[in-house]
């Protein structure tokens, strides 16, 4: 390890780094703007100047930009030398000549890197009295504000947006003093990672527009570590809450990134960042609702929807307790329907209450089967589930059937970084340090090979070296052919036109050192998953080393649910049958639905059957939806940010999220509603009293660990509610949290006792541990002098390393089991009718909860149907034509979109989009296409 001297002190430092990141990792404060830990150095801002001395005799030294200076063994540097300090001060002074004096109205204020750096350099007095250059701002869509006058031209925004995230519509325009960062024309930023600009820009040029609508300063936000609930990647987040306008209930104000090295690093996708607002939306359930028994106006409600009225929670709990009692006495059958978007705790609680035999996964059989396949594949010792840094370092990637840009966006961003690995290798050979960003990007090293096989164009096409479009069968056959080629066998099932591509991809994968295969449940095809597994195991056998295989699940706790529900027959498709047999026995049935919208899971006919066969429908959920509208009793359930729980991501990593604030109204965790009902249950037995005894999240964690040895880690994830550090809990509020008594002063001026958190050693106040180095539960990343998120480096093991006080999560310990040898499925020959409908995912629209966030709802595309150009021509369909698709018993209206990539005879239909949910539940499936006649209005 090289030794360097900074201002007279010797340090042993990591080799190959630049001086700036070295200083920062040593805890030395040194101001900077353009350097970014994930994006390296370009030397653009000149803020990080220090003095470098030739040798001990040299007393003058010379100014160097520390971010561009490689560490030299024996190097002598000074950060504090007068000359360097003056230079840095003058840089800030220059930047400030054009920067407006608008901190009080700037939303960056209080967490602004420019404020921090200005303070740090000691430039506290403005001499410049001239005019400042002013710009016109642009409308950039519903997510991002633009205030260009605040720009200091560090170029971080375009470096992130274009270089890192592959966006094409944000650019540095103009030059000199007039340089402008914006779009060619006003309009919505197109890249799905645009929200990161808010955190990447060191000033207030790009700020969060959704936050603006209910803005408070960073120090006025209450926060706790959370997990993004909008897909199964499991990105870590730091949501912020504050009392709402009524001055009482807390409301969620925003979500920002919470660094997790192995998952999200520094960046979130826009669904994760802006999807939070669903918790505040109009459809939010905050009270207990009961269906009215009188049929007054029921005639107006469609499909058996009920009219609900609020009832006191106590009454509802007692009603549920009666149901439990009847079930205990054998007079009633209890069915539980779990959910992949509910925590392990909630699912487990319901499963215990109704008994494993009566616990249904809340998924269609096909989706449950896919999850079980993923689970089985990941158990094979030859399969390795890669972390984000491992994905980024893959040197050859095959994506089989999964549209990860839309189903696991953050993973897509990681794949984008992997595309540069050949370039990086070339840089290594040329001895160019990796952090020399501009120089490395200039190398014309070929892009690393990334092959994408999917139903249509993918968001990664610009970096793909080969592309294959096909139906699920064709993609699976292609995958099997690759597996055979890799295993050195002659492939059976691949058309000659693709053989060459297959040969070339298999050679690249075989020759690579760190191959990566990606697939997942989004394609809703077991054959594709099997082919991906065959392929990965073939590579593993060939290299005698486990092969990296990333399999995406679709929801935050999909894999967790699969652990609790291992019987593939406990799927919704089988529920009507089960309810019917029960009906013959004349016992009434009560169905308890846990945080699940059944109309997104199964076709309308099946959902309707379940609703009408259930004698009593009890629903616990966050938002009003088609299922709650059919319910007899609706309990308001806590959202992720309002509760504590555990979820298992696509990689089998169990992670805990903590309550950021107390849900408003009567909201509480679903398991608490169930435990309350058990407590009120007049019929007591061992089961009921165990459930009634659950008081803390940890009680459930223990119970889960006991019931499921493979999930033992769940009990070890975090400290329990009694844990203390130096006698203190961790504070959710910052020292500066304002108005703590004033806010209630209209009612009482006495100091309020903070609400007790029954689940975690976290307090809803400022008294407690503030230091993120002392507890992973501290999500407010702040250090003296570092008020922006750039403070993060203070808490990492080296730049880009793990958080010292690691968040982490733990992998569940699944027993390993080898996979069978899967053969390509033989397709039954025969004339197929109609079109093959293929599920198409979109970052905005396919996510159930995020679609209810107003900002996201405003950019969701109209329900579309992708139709191949030739099919469109044959049927005389133009883009924008209204079409109707019938599949099973469902019919949906959509707008035609012409596609060059969707296979002939197939139609791409949106998965999970509002209004057309049934399509997603069926695809891939055969359906009929009808042209709708436009009302012409003329007389014919």
């Amino acid at each position: 390890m090289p030794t360097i001297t900074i201002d007279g002190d010797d340090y042993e430092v990591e080799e190959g780094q630049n001086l700036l990141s070295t200083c920062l990792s040593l805890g030395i404060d040194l101001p900077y703007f353009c350097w970014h830990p994930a994006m390296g150095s370009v030397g653009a801002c000149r803020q990080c100047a220090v003095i470098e001395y030739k040798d001990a005799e040299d007393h003058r030294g010379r100014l160097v930009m520390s971010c561009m200076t490689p560490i030299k063994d024996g190097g002598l540097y000074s950060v504090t030398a007068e000359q360097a300090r003056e230079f840095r001060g003058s840089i800030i002074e220059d930047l400030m000549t054009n920067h407006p004096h608008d901190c009080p109205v700037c939303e960056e204020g209080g967490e602004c890197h420019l404020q921090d750096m200005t303070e740090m350099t000691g430039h506290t007095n403005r001499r410049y009295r001239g005019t400042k250059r002013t710009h016109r701002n642009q409308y950039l869509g519903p997510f991002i504000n633009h205030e260009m006058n605040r720009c200091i031209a560090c170029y971080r925004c375009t470096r992130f947006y274009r270089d890192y995230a592959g966006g094409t519509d944000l650019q540095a325009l103009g030059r000199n003093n007039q340089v402008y960062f914006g779009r060619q024309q006003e309009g919505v930023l197109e890249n799905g990672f645009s929200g990161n600009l808010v955190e990447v820009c060191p000033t207030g040029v790009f700020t969060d527009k959704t936050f603006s609508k209910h803005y408070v300063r960073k120090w006025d936000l209450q926060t706790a570590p959370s997990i993004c609930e909008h897909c199964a990647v499991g990105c870590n987040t730091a949501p912020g809450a504050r009392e709402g306008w009524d001055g009482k209930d807390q409301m969620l104000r925003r979500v920002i990134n919470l660094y997790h090295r192995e998952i999200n690093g520094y960046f979130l996708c826009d669904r994760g960042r802006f999807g939070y607002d669903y918790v505040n939306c109009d459809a939010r359930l905050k009270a207990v609702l009961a269906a009215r028994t009188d049929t007054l106006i029921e005639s107006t409600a469609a499909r058996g929807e009920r009219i609900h009225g609020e009832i006191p929670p106590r009454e509802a709990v007692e009603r549920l307790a009666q149901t439990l009692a009847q079930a205990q006495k054998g007079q009633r059958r209890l069915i539980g329907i779990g959910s992949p978007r509910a925590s392990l705790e909630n699912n487990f609680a319901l499963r215990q209450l109704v008994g494993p035999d009566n616990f249904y996964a809340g998924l269609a059989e096909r989706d449950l089967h896919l999850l079980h396949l993923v689970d089985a594949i990941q158990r094979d010792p030859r399969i390795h589930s890669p972390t984000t840094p491992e994905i980024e370092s893959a040197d050859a990637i095959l994506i089989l059937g999964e549209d990860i840009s839309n189903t696991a966006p953050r993973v897509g961003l990681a794949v984008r970084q992997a595309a540069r690995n050949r370039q990086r290798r070339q840089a290594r050979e040329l001895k160019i340090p990796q952090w020399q960003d501009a120089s490395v990007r200039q190398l014309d090293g070929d892009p690393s090979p990334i092959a994408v096989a999917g139903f249509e164009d993918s968001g990664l096409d610009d970096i793909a070296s080969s592309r294959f479009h096909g139906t699920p069968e064709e993609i699976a056959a292609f995958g099997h052919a690759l597996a055979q080629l890799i295993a050195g066998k002659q492939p059976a099932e691949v058309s000659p036109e693709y053989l060459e591509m297959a040969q070339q991809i298999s050679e690249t994968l075989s020759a690579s050192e760190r191959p990566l295969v990606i697939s997942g449940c989004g394609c809703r095809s077991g054959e594709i998953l099997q082919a991906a597994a065959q392929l990965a195991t073939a590579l593993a056998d060939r290299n005698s080393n486990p092969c990296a295989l990333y399999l995406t699940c679709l929801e935050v706790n999909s894999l967790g649910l699969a652990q609790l529900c291992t019987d593939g027959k406990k799927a919704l498709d089988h529920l009507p049958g089960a309810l019917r047999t029960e009906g013959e026995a004349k016992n009434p049935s009560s169905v308890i639905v846990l945080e699940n919208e059944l109309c997104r899971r199964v076709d309308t006919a099946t959902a309707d059957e379940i609703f009408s066969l259930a004698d009593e429908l009890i629903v616990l959920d966050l938002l009003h939806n088609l299922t709650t509208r059919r319910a007899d009793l609706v309990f308001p359930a806590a959202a992720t940010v309002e509760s504590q729980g555990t979820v298992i991501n696509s990689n089998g990593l169990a992670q805990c999220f903590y309550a950021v604030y107390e849900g408003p109204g009567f909201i509480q965790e679903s398991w608490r509603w169930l435990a309350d009902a058990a407590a009120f249950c007049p019929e007591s037995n061992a089961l009921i009293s165990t459930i009634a005894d659950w008081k803390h999240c940890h009680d459930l964690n223990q119970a889960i660990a006991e019931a499921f040895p493979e999930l033992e880690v769940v009990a070890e994830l975090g400290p329990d509610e009694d844990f203390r550090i130096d006698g203190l809990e961790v504070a959710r509020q910052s020292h500066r949290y304002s108005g703590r008594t004033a806010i209630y002063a209209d009612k009482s001026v006495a100091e309020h006792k903070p609400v007790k958190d029954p689940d975690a050693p976290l307090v809803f106040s400022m008294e407690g541990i503030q230091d993120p180095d002392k507890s992973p539960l501290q999500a407010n990343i702040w250090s003296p002098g570092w008020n922006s998120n750039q403070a993060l480096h203070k808490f990492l093991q080296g730049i880009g390393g793990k958080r010292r006080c690691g968040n982490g999560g733990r992998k569940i310990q699944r027993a390993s089991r080898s996979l069978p040898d899967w053969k390509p499925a033989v397709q039954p020959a025969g004339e197929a009718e109609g079109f093959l409908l293929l599920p198409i995912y979109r970052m905005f629209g396919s996510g159930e909860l995020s679609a209810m966030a107003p900002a996201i709802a405003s950019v969701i595309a109209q329900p579309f149907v992708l139709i191949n150009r030739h099919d469109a021509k044959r049927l005389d369909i133009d883009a924008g034509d209204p079409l109707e698709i019938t599949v099973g018993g469902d019919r949906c209206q959509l707008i035609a979109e012409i596609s060059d990539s969707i296979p002939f005879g197939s139609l791409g239909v949106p998965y999970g989009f509002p209004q057309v949910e049934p399509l997603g539940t069926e695809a891939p499936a055969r359906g009929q296409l009808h042209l709708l006649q436009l009302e012409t209005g003329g007389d014919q």
Partner: protein
Amino acid sequence: MSSVFEPEVVEVMDFSKADRSTETQLSAEEKREIDAEFSHYEDKASVGLEALRIVQKHRGWISDQSLQAVSDYLDIPSAQLEGVATFFQLIFRQPVGKEVILFCKSASCWIMGCARLQARIEQKLQIAPGQTSGDGIFTLLETPCLGDCDKAPVMMVGEEMHRNLTEQSIDEIIDNKKRRHADESTD
């Protein structure tokens, strides 16, 4: 900077043709010239600047439509092309006059009194830098060193270099140009 030294840099359009500045398609001629230029470059993105120059030669300036047409033709994002267009001073994103005056404002010309001469032009044409005279003939632009310091003060009018400027020579140059354009329009 370097392009400033190239004599052919401001290619003024042939005004006898109809105004095509807002056409959304490139003409066959424009495409042919861009293709010819493209043969000297490795990829399409690098030929962007040349393509803009070619289109500007034909259309006088680069309208949003022209920018989009080039972007479509070369298949490079319009934002990237706009970055190029707004970086180079001699790509005009607004209509300019028939004669573009590039008036040097760097050190030597400044020492030799260019400020006074600039005031003369501004007063004579009633325009400030960046503006076009009411008759649509002249656009005045300030420029850094034109590389003719030993003959300072200097300016370029279209492709012509005018050296050792005095108030008198400026009057002559402008009056001559005015006359020429007046003749042309009465032809």
